[in-house]
């Protein structure tokens, strides 16, 4: 069970991004977090596993207070929280299997992880998960050879390999086309249910959230302004969360997905994600290397 008490996050001396958030998530409960950009959704998720350090307040996971943990204990605590990222956060140059196995880094010593000598049970579990998320035939492919939907499945498998108590999910579908988005959300809900996992899903697509999740929490300007059933999300509530808008737009269906059954690339054409930025390293006029593709440099922390 996860308890968030009076969580405050302030950067420098500006306005706080989170103003005393209170939230409780029971075991096995899935929660969707909605709100406009800058509301603090991403910050909230990252404060739970301290990728962002909270300014004040408490985060208690199964009785353990996270903000006060020392480094080794924090690592142990992080093992219990599986995180899934908006831009998949896979290691591009490693294979699918290596990416999934990296979920167990918290349990394996440095040298074993360097030599990729994971215990056979871990490997078995990894294969199981790869089958479950439907990506088994790509086991030895490099992660950057996969489509968006496929990459997110690997991300899900990686998080599940940790045998976590809770899933922290940051905008899992924002780069995906409508059909793939639904597939991924369905997969997430199914695996959470199968394993009795709690989950907190940061999501911008309100309709998608309402379709799959039974509890919605709306965040605005660092405050919780709604917490309840998606059916209670009337226009007035949406206005309170997002501001004035013609909400009839959100009820129009986006089922016009392209006819081909195959997920294809599964990704919306977002310039930086479908093209690699050829960041070449030059010294004395000579090309000596290539940066990792810099496409995900944007929106790293500023939300």
């Amino acid at each position, binding site marked *: 069970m996860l308890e968030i008490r009076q969580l405050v996050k302030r950067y420098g001396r500006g306005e706080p991004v989170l103003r005393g958030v209170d939230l409780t998530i029971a075991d096995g409960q899935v929660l969707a977090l909605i709100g406009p950009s800058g509301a603090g959704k991403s910050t909230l998720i990252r404060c739970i596993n301290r990728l962002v350090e909270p300014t004040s307040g408490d985060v208690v996971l199964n009785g353990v207070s996270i903000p006060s943990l020392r480094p080794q204990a924090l690592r142990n605590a992080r093992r219990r929280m599986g995180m899934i990222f908006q831009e998949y956060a896979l290691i591009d140059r490693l294979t699918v299997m290596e990416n999934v196995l990296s979920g167990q880094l918290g349990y394996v010593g440095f040298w074993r992880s360097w030599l990729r000598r994971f215990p056979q049970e871990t490997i078995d579990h990894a294969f199981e998960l790869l089958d479950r998320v439907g990506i088994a035939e790509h086991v030895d492919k490099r992660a950057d050879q996969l489509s968006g939907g496929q990459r997110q499945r690997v991300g899900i498998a990686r998080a599940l390999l940790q045998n976590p108590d809770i899933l922290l999910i940051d905008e899992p579908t924002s780069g995906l086309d409508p059909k793939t988005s639904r597939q991924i959300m369905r997969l997430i809900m199914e695996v959470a249910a199968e394993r009795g996992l709690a989950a907190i899903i940061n999501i911008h697509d309100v309709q998608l959230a309402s379709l799959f999740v039974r509890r919605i929490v709306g965040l605005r300007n660092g405050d919780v302004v709604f917490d309840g059933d998606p059916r209670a999300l009337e226009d007035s509530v949406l206005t309170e969360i997002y501001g004035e808008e013609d909400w009839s737009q959100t009820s129009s269906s986006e089922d016009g997905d392209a006819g081909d059954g195959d997920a294809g690339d599964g990704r919306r054409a977002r310039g930086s994600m479908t093209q690699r930025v050829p960041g070449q390293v030059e010294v004395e006029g000579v*090309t000596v290397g290539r940066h990792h593709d810099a496409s995900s440099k944007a929106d790293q922390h500023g939300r």
Partner: protein
Amino acid sequence: MPVNVIDGRREWRLRDRRGTLLRWLGTFAAVLLFGISMQYISSLTIWEFVADSGRQIGDLFGRMFPPQWSYAPRLWGPLWDTVNIATIGTLVAVIVAVPITFLAARNTTPHAVVRLAALLVIVVSRSVNSLIWALIIVALIGPGVLSGIIAISLRAVGFISKLLYEAVEEINQEQVEAMLATGASKLQVIAYAILPQIRPTFVGVSVFRWDINIREATVLGLVGAGGIGFQLNSAINLLLWDRASLIFAMILVLVVLSEAISARIRQAIT
């Protein structure tokens, strides 16, 4: 704005007033600096010698050709030494450069003071040429191939570390976040999230430096730090220009080969 309105007509020039002025000033400054420098150099030059240069060079080339091919067998050893100085020197430099890189990169350094220290090491290493390092090392531990290797490494560490730490600072942070989120230790984060991202740059920079080091290693012998430079120095001191030209020829082949190898490898990774 390159467009001016003059007398009601629009005129276009490549640069506006300010740009033109800056260009003229810049050119003027450059010419001035050049003039001063040349004047100073000229004051230190004995122009009678220069006048004689045509004859000197003609004489020199006459003595250089044909090269003393028969001396070649005595040069394989020193040539092998030269290659080793460059290769092992680069290897050592790479090994030392890796920890320094991570200490110097903003996103992986444990502490600001440590970072400063690492940057200082890099700066000192980069500012001093291999040959000068060689001078110092030979004074410290005596002549020989070991001094050459150390000299090469001392210079190369700075070169490699600087480029690598810049690459480390440019990586995609989300991958680092993902590894941290699984409970990985700092070393594991480096191994899984950072090293794979910088691998092409790492290989490219190392191979490039090796290529440069081959060139540098050819002259270290001039100060006693091993390699074919020693034979070259003797030949020149004894005015055996045909022997010297043989050595030049061997150096030429060596450098052209190493550059070709380096270019091929770098092409393969980018």
